[in-house]
């Protein structure tokens, strides 16, 4: 009777043990001891075990707890020692109690004693063929773990090299077995189990000791072997750490040639000749097996990300703060590695997806937000990026870089000049270190753009004065900055202070000789200084250094047209077309390919086919011609949008930017044909341009010019009128319209348009000359002579192309 009861009790106890219910196990063991005295050894063992385990749960066996453990574990020690003797051996408990004692000694920091008990337990003689219970598995795993840790902690002093090597091998073996058995144990656990500090340390330690011994490949193999074990709830957090660490090892210690790819798991399983004490591994068919370090790193990071994401805490209440920060730290660590691994390969959309997902649990986390915003910028999703930057700046108020980035996006991509200016002012206000000159420069750029786009003279003068001040401040603070000097020169040029501008552009070029925009401006300034030959030389030299720069070619074509005749210019044009084919044709075809990555249709705000592309003005490869002004490009945008909805016009597939460059080449070519007196060819060019965008004011203007050539003034007038309605701030078209009216015998209207033109561009001699002619026909000779005089005065400082035709430069 008693025996049966005891047997039943034993079963219950066994269950408690495997579930880690130590208090209950102790209670039951006491009961067992009371009920059947012949089970005393067993009871003692159980009590000792229970006390040891429950103590270690409260006080994990780490170095700081060693001293405390010596007192706290005295009871357990006594109990377990009592079982080690003859009684214990009879009851078959000696092995287990030796192992537990070894663990106990390790927890107390008494490594020698611990190792002694391992020796006594004769653990290594165990045969792998036996199937073990979960509890035994755990004891075994922990024992190997503790043994490894003991060997590692015991500093081998004065021992021979051979001895040291032997110890090392022993330690590595211990860790390896601890890992295998530990994983097997964890796989047998259903719910999330606490694996305990000893086991966790040993599992993570096993590859690290190999790194320490400079056996990197072995360490990597260790990681791989642990990671290929099938995941359970109990191993998730361990796997997160291991996956991240292996990714770290691959990123920090391995480079291309040193890498050996992992083997297929199924092969690994069979080679081990059916060991029972091995964890199950992933063996699905058709597995992804990394072939190089990038694939493996990314795979690991993806897995780590998925795991870390799962644990991310969304609760914001303070009681979860520590848990939340811990989880966030884990995720962030993975993201940082992912950033390192992807950006270099241009896989930013990949990274962006991760950050987007992270926002859910990253409320008010400046790091994640900043990275998110940056990834959007790199993806050229500017509108979105600007919004993200606004939020992100709130979280890190001292970060002037983000403000300046917002400003740059506003200027360069979105055409929001005033908003950009505000960001720049804010950056200057908050300025911390090193960025003060940049803030001033950006303020200047904003003011310059405002000055270019306003028509009110008083406002324009004010803005350009302020712009000069800002640029001068920037130059003063940072005397080594070519960009500020360049902008200072540009502003002077726009104000027609040619000599002043020349001084500054020379400084800019001295600071950086190879800056295409500076060279461009320099050439234009030389033409405005009656030195066209020098300008030509500069352009030629610049084209040697920047052979693919269509802007510079554009200038060259104009110069050639004026200096050497159309033959030469045609040659240049031919080159431009060839270049366009080389550089952009692919963009117009590969719509489903790489381009879509950058212009992700899913996210574009306006679903129009022609996208808003003020970036025509400036682009990463700075290859766009004749941007006129931001306002004009806005007009362009609006019109192309209208065109796509309105008429016989099908927008060309592919990048609108590429097409707009082609359009401008056609327009220029038409101009050259007209000057070589080939109106039919010019007409064909205009047709080509029109098929790209029929509503471009450049095309309409050129069509008008062709009509003028044929003396068809009525048609010409209509074309110019169209151009002006498309872009009311287009001075050439206004001038031409005025001229058309003049020839059609409508001098009053002509006067009106010419005055408008002069208001927009008061420095163009041509406008004043035409106006002079008109005034003459109106018999207003004083006004006429004034106009002519102005024209004469302006003529020497007139560049071959407007200074504002240079695109915005940011680097």
């Amino acid at each position: 009777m008693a025996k049966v009861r005891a047997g039943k009790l034993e079963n219950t106890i066994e269950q408690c043990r495997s579930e880690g219910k130590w208090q209950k196990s102790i209670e039951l063991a006491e009961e067992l001891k009371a009920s059947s005295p012949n089970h005393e050894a067993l009871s003692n063992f159980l009590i000792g075990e229970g006390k040891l385990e429950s103590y270690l749960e409260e006080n994990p066996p780490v170095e700081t707890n060693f001293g405390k453990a010596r007192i706290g574990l005295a009871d357990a020690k006594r109990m377990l020692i009592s079982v080690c003797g003859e009684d214990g051996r009879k009851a078959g408990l000696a092995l287990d109690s030796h192992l537990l004692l070894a663990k106990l000694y390790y927890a107390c920091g008494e490594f020698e004693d611990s190792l002694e008990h391992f020796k006594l337990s004769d653990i290594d003689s165990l045969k792998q063929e036996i199937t073990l219970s979960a509890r035994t598995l755990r004891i075994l795993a922990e024992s190997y773990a503790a043994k490894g840790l003991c060997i590692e902690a015991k500093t081998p002093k004065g021992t021979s090299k051979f001895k040291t090597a032997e110890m090392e091998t022993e330690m590595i073996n211990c860790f390896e077995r601890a890992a295998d058995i530990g994983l097997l144990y964890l796989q047998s656990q259903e719910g999330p189990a606490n694996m305990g500090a000893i086991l966790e340390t040993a599992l993570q330690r096993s590859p690290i000791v190999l790194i320490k011994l400079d056996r990197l490949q072995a360490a990597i193999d260790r990681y791989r072997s642990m990671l290929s074990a099938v995941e359970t709830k109990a191993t998730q957090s361990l796997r997160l750490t291991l996956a991240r660490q292996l990714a770290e090892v691959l990123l920090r210690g391995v480079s291309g040639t040193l890498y050996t790819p992992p083997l297929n798991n199924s092969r690994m399983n069979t080679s081990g000749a059916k060991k029972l004490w091995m964890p199950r591994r992933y063996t699905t068919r058709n597995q992804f097996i990394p072939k190089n370090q990038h694939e493996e790193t990314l795979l690991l990071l993806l897995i780590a990300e998925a795991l870390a994401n799962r644990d991310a805490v969304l609760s914001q209440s303070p009681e979860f703060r520590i848990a939340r920060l811990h989880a966030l730290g884990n995720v962030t660590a993975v993201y940082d590695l992912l950033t390192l691994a992807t950006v270099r390969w241009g896989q930013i959309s990949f990274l962006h997806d991760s950050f987007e997902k992270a926002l859910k649990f990253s409320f008010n986390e400046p790091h994640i937000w900043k990275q998110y915003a940056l990834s959007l910028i790199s993806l050229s999703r500017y509108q979105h990026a600007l919004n993200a930057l606004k939020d992100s700046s709130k979280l890190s108020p001292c970060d002037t870089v983000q403000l300046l980035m917002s400003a740059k996006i506003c200027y360069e991509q979105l055409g929001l000049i005033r908003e950009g200016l505000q960001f720049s002012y804010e950056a200057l206000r908050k300025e911390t270190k090193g960025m003060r000159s940049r803030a001033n420069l950006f303020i200047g750029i904003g003011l310059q753009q405002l000055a270019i786009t306003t028509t009110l003279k008083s406002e324009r003068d004010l803005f350009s004065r302020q712009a000069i001040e800002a640029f001068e401040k920037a130059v003063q603070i940072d005397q080594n900055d070519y960009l500020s000097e360049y902008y200072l020169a540009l502003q002077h040029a726009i104000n027609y202070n040619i000599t002043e501008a020349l001084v500054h552009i020379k400084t800019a070029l001295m600071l950086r000789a190879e800056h295409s925009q500076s060279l461009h401006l320099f050439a234009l300034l030389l033409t405005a200084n009656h030195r066209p030959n020098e300008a030509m030389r500069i352009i030629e030299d610049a084209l040697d250094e920047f052979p693919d720069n269509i802007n510079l070619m554009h200038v060259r074509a104009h110069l050639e047209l004026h200096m050497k005749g159309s033959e030469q210019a045609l040659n240049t044009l031919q080159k431009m077309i060839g270049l366009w084919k080389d550089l952009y044709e692919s963009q117009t075809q590969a719509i489903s390919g790489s381009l879509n990555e950058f212009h992700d249709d899913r996210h574009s705000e306006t679903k129009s086919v022609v996208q808003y592309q003020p970036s025509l003005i400036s682009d990463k490869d700075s290859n766009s011609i004749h941007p006129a002004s931001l306002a004009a490009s806005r007009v362009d945008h609006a019109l192309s949008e209208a065109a796509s909805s309105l008429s016989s016009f099908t927008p060309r597939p592919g990048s609108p930017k590429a097409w707009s460059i082609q359009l401008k080449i056609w327009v220029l070519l038409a101009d050259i044909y007209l000057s070589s007196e080939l109106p039919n060819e010019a007409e064909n060019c205009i047709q080509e341009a029109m098929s790209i965008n029929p509503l471009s004011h450049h095309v309409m203007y050129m069509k008008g010019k062709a009509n003028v050539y044929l003396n068809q003034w009525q048609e010409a007038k209509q074309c110019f009128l169209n151009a002006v309605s498309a872009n009311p701030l287009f001075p050439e078209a206004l001038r031409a319209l005025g001229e058309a009216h003049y020839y059609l015998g409508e001098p009053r209207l002509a006067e009106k348009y010419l005055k408008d033109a002069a208001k927009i561009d008061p420095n163009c001699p041509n406008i004043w000359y035409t106006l002079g002619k008109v005034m003459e026909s109106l018999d207003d000779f004083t006004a006429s002579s004034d106009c002519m005089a102005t024209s004469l005065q302006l003529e020497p400082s007139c560049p071959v192309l407007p200074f504002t035709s240079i695109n915005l430069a940011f680097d």
Partner: protein
Amino acid sequence: MAESIVSDWINDFNGLEPQQLRSFAALHNENHELSQAIHTILNDKSKHQEYLHPICNQLYNFYRSNENELKCFTLQFFPNLIYLYLNSIACSEKHNYRCVETLILCAYNIEVCNENGLLKSVSYRMPVLAQASIYHEEKNLHASDLKRWEEHSNKEVSWRSLHQVYKITAQNRLAVMSALMFIFNQQLSLIQKSALYHLCKNSSKLAAQGFIKYGHSYRSSYGNDPMNTSISSASSTTSAPNINKMTPRIPLSQQFLLEVLNAIYFAMFNEFASAGIQTVDDIHNRACYELYSDVILVTTAIKNSLQTNPSGQPSDGLMGISVALTPSTNVVTVSKSMITNASFRTKKLPDDIPIQIDSNTSVNQSNPSAQSQAQQLGSINEEQESDTNSAKLQQQSSTTIVPTQKSSKEASKGHKTVVSGLKKLIDRDKDSKDKDKDKDDEGKKKEKEKVEKELSKAASAIKSGLNDTKENMKKLMGKDKQNSKASLQQQTQSNHHDEHQASANNGDIKSSPLVLMKRSSDVLSDGLATEVSFTNAVDGVISNNNGTGTHGIMSPFDSFNSDSESEVDHPHQQLSTSSSASVNIMMDSNAKSLGNVQVSQV
């Protein structure tokens, strides 16, 4: 001292028999003294005059030889040489460094081509979690993790392919430098560790030269790096801490800095922690100054990981990896009330209306039999659309701008991208009708089967809705081809339904034939883009059009109004002859049909 080592080395090599090369090469890998001496000379401008040329010459010979050891030996000086070269450009002293330029150019060209003269490329597959791997099984993962990566599915990522370069210009200079750094990175773990120190130092100079230092004094010390004492004393003469206006800044590019950062990150965890951290700071500052978003992404990530790395710091050794225990507090405090990402179950959203629209996309492409149903569904909202469009038209007809017709060339180019055009159309379609229900395409495709079920349900509903228009249709269609399939009938019926609506709504526009013409030609070209993939539909339409040709105004209107539907309804008779696979539809056919339209208009 350095001089004598280097001149011995040069003389040794010059007196070498070809068969001795291998043993000569073997000596280099461990010869730290020699590397040190060469670095010293490269760092000391005063010695360039005498030694730079022979060194470059010899390194070039090394690089050209097929001995990997010698190549690797040369590789370690790349950062140093790149700095020398870029600095010489910035100082306009290029003429003194021709030999460096030549070496760089040759090394680059050797690297971008393989033996057969083809361009080399380094690429890898982008892993996806949806595919099981040796480290995971897809079933254990959250559905969202799986889905999200699908679009990247096993995409091949390769390092930007490069061309051979005959001359280094301002335009390609930094691309060449990035390529060299990329090659350097490929061999990082084979390069002598001491070279990593020089890497850090030269990268710092590249990034920070010509800038005023904030926050810390110009590097007088690198902390406790082993190489520090010996090297800094040797090079202190050149990198004197004077920040005068004369040291020019060196122009850099994002890609170049990214490659450098990759190497620096490696150096940071391979003995040169403090030097590496210092360099990352320098690069970060430069990137901020230039507003390089890509570079800032990486530097921020590195800096953040240094601050909060859960496993360890680079200075700990062991690649910054140490045991990171799960905090016990985690287990204790995790209560049921805490919400984590795992607390969310992904619930499938109800597959309601948007799917029907989307089915246009998926079903049309794959399953012609379901096509007609889909089109019917698409036409539900037609009425509204024609309203807004008519308003637009009115506006447009009053503008002063008179665009001319597009040239024929353009139109024929139009169908090169048939599929893309189609996609766009569908997008627009979806957008206009379904703005608020707009959903992710990707996910939908997966649910195609479901969709089809839905479709059949919806189709039956619509059939009943169409009944009232059917009568109308019969009158209108006069001699409609009876032999067309039943499904096609349905389709035309729905179209005619639209036409009806359209003509009713746009009465005021009838008066503007010019606009009509424009519109029709617009639609023509729109249609062209899609026709080819919808030959089935086109067949049906043509029969339809033969019938409708008698009652004028409708067809162009119709096609305009159902912009999105244009794959079905445009008056394109010519196509009937070449409907099977006519990718190359010529414009004259277009013009003819356009003529037809005009006639019917007038």
